[in-house]
């Protein structure tokens, strides 16, 4: 009896010795996470807490600021600067739509038609990043300058008549108008649209196009029913990567716009660095963050549940 009992579990022990992992081994993933976590705590969480406390302080630069739980700053900021908020959303939205309209065909071409030129075209897409963002935006100032070739051409084609009627340009000027700011935003964020679009298009199995064609779908229907729905992850991440930074951008409005095209980013910059009204600046930042979070959540919910695989 005793012999059978001791012999019976002869097989399981192999699994048993392997099961309890050594303590040190189990902690390794956490040690690997630590640098990243520390980085986030020091450079993301702490500044957020600091800014949150700033936004509810009152006082002046001379007397110092104190936390007084003064939430009225938020209402005041919103009441004073809602046009800039609205403008930010409109400009960023227009730039995002333009980026999608320009970027999708290009990403499609790179993914399906570029063949051996694919890598070269991809490098060209990110090539602008090799020079400073500021320099490139300044270059647009020259490109769009009054009486320059672009403006003359647009004028000759009567495009400016239409955009002026829409309130996007001002007579014969493009620089210092909403159109210039939107163009700048579109230009600067285009790669952020193209790259995610390309990644998700490139993943689509080419045989799905053949299968759709085989099942009586014309090329246009194949795009509408197969390619586009399957590229939705790229569309969503591309629009987010474009819209979010564009909504908070101030450089384009600063360099290419005028006082009439100020976006919320410009207001925050001015409040922080020139007027030195830190609580208002911090409150504006939080309002912008909350607004973007809400918009993004709604957007992901709406696009995500329907078509994403």
């Amino acid at each position, binding site marked *: 009896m005793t012999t059978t009992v001791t012999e019976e579990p002869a097989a399981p022990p192999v699994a048993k010795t392997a099961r309890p992992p050594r303590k040190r081994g189990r902690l390794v993933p956490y040690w690997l996470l630590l640098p990243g976590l520390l980085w986030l705590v020091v450079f993301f969480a702490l500044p957020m807490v600091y800014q949150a406390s700033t936004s509810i302080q009152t006082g002046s630069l001379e007397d110092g600021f104190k936390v007084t739980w003064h939430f009225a700053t938020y209402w005041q900021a919103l009441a004073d600067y809602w046009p800039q908020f609205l403008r930010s959303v409109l400009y960023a939205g227009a730039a995002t739509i333009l980026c999608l309209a320009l970027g999708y065909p290009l990403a499609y071409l790179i993914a399906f038609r570029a063949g051996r030129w694919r890598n070269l075209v991809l490098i060209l897409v990110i090539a602008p990043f090799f020079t400073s963002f500021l320099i490139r935006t300044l270059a647009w100032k020259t490109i769009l300058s009054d009486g320059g070739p672009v403006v003359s051409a647009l004028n000759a084609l009567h495009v400016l008549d239409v955009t002026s009627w829409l309130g996007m340009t001002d007579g014969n000027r493009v620089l210092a108008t909403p159109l210039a700011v939107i163009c700048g935003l579109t230009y600067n964020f285009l790669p952020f649209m193209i790259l995610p679009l390309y990644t998700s298009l490139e993943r689509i*199995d080419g*045989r*799905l196009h*053949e*299968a*759709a*064609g*085989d*099942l*009586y*779908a*014309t090329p246009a*229907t194949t795009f509408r*029913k*197969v390619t586009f*729905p*399957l590229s939705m992850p790229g569309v969503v991440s591309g629009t987010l990567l474009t819209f979010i930074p564009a909504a908070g951008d101030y450089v384009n409005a600063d360099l290419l716009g005028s006082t009439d095209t100020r976006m919320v980013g410009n207001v925050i910059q001015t409040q922080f660095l020139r007027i030195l009204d830190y609580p208002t600046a911090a409150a504006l930042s939080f309002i912008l963050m909350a607004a973007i979070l809400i918009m993004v959540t709604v957007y992901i919910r709406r696009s995500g549940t329907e*078509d*994403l*695989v």
Partner: protein
Amino acid sequence: MTTDHGGDVRLTGISKTYGSFTAVQPLDLTVPEGSFFALLGASGCGKTTTLRMIAGLEEPSSGTVMLGDQDVTALPPYKRPVNTVFQSYALFPHLDIFENVAFGLRRRGVKSVKKQVGEMLDLVQLGEQARKKPHQLSGGQQQRVAVARALINHPKVLLLDEPLGALDLKLRRQMQLELKRIQTEVGITFIHVTHDQEEAMTMADTVAVMNAGRVEQLGAPADLYENPASTFVANFLGTSNFIEAEVAGRSGDDLTLKAGGGKLVLPVSRCTASAATGEKVLVGIRPEKISLTHADDAGTIPDGRNRITGRVADSSFIGVSTQYVIESPLCDAFEVYAQNIERDSRLAPGAEVVLHWNPAHTFGLDAAQDIEAGAAKVEEDAAA
């Protein structure tokens, strides 16, 4: 050619070249309406390219594709009345099973698809899975969805591109019968591309064996097996033993051949090579047609049979039969499959034996070809 069969697929002088590489040599092929036709060959032989030219996914470099009386050579795939079951299925991952199957109907503007899709899903036994996404199904189920998605359109021709390649052996056997059943039920012409000779022979009425962009031989499976016209077909479909021989003379309907020191008999009707005296001929015989007798009992072998002496080099018992490899002066590795009805225990490696067979099973091929052609593939399949 046939003019009364309105649904035949007719390929005339069709070829495909990529730069300097010729994937399909100019090819004439007629697939009769309602038949189950298999294009069989090793990978790279041009069978898939041929299929894709019928589907319209590949543009032929020359020649025409006719479906019945309609020349479809210039039509894009979405205008052709054919549907394809793709290798690895190509199901739409963002659509559920119902919508995958309904895809073709919707594109043709059919309004109420529910009944048809339901019936089709029942035909392939997937009625319960209609609202699942493709990735939630097993390989065999996905395969059936792919078949349903194509069949629901009632194409003139259904093209199947290695549809069972991704399935395991057992499921593959099951699906072969299933596809055969569906074909019989719907009566649509099936053109099936495969590299699996057993699959082609099990399912198809007619098999075209392709090699290096050409059709080597075309015929019913049994006919191809019994009367291969080339060493490639003889080796690719099953296994064959070959002996190099010389025509010694002719008596009635039989040729007498000299091979080594011995004499073999070959029916004239089964010799595709020149039968003139003195010509070299490759004599072929299938392993299962050969009987083995121990050398001590050589006297019991009836007269009139072809016989060769040899020594057992290897034997492997595989249940229903035993496979022997025999060394002989005429051929260093003669394969013999013997049914395990009465096993002679003396037939162990090293034993001297006599191989003998009915001359009617012998076939003769032109000696100017590679004896090994098509053989490597068979070994590869046997190993898999």
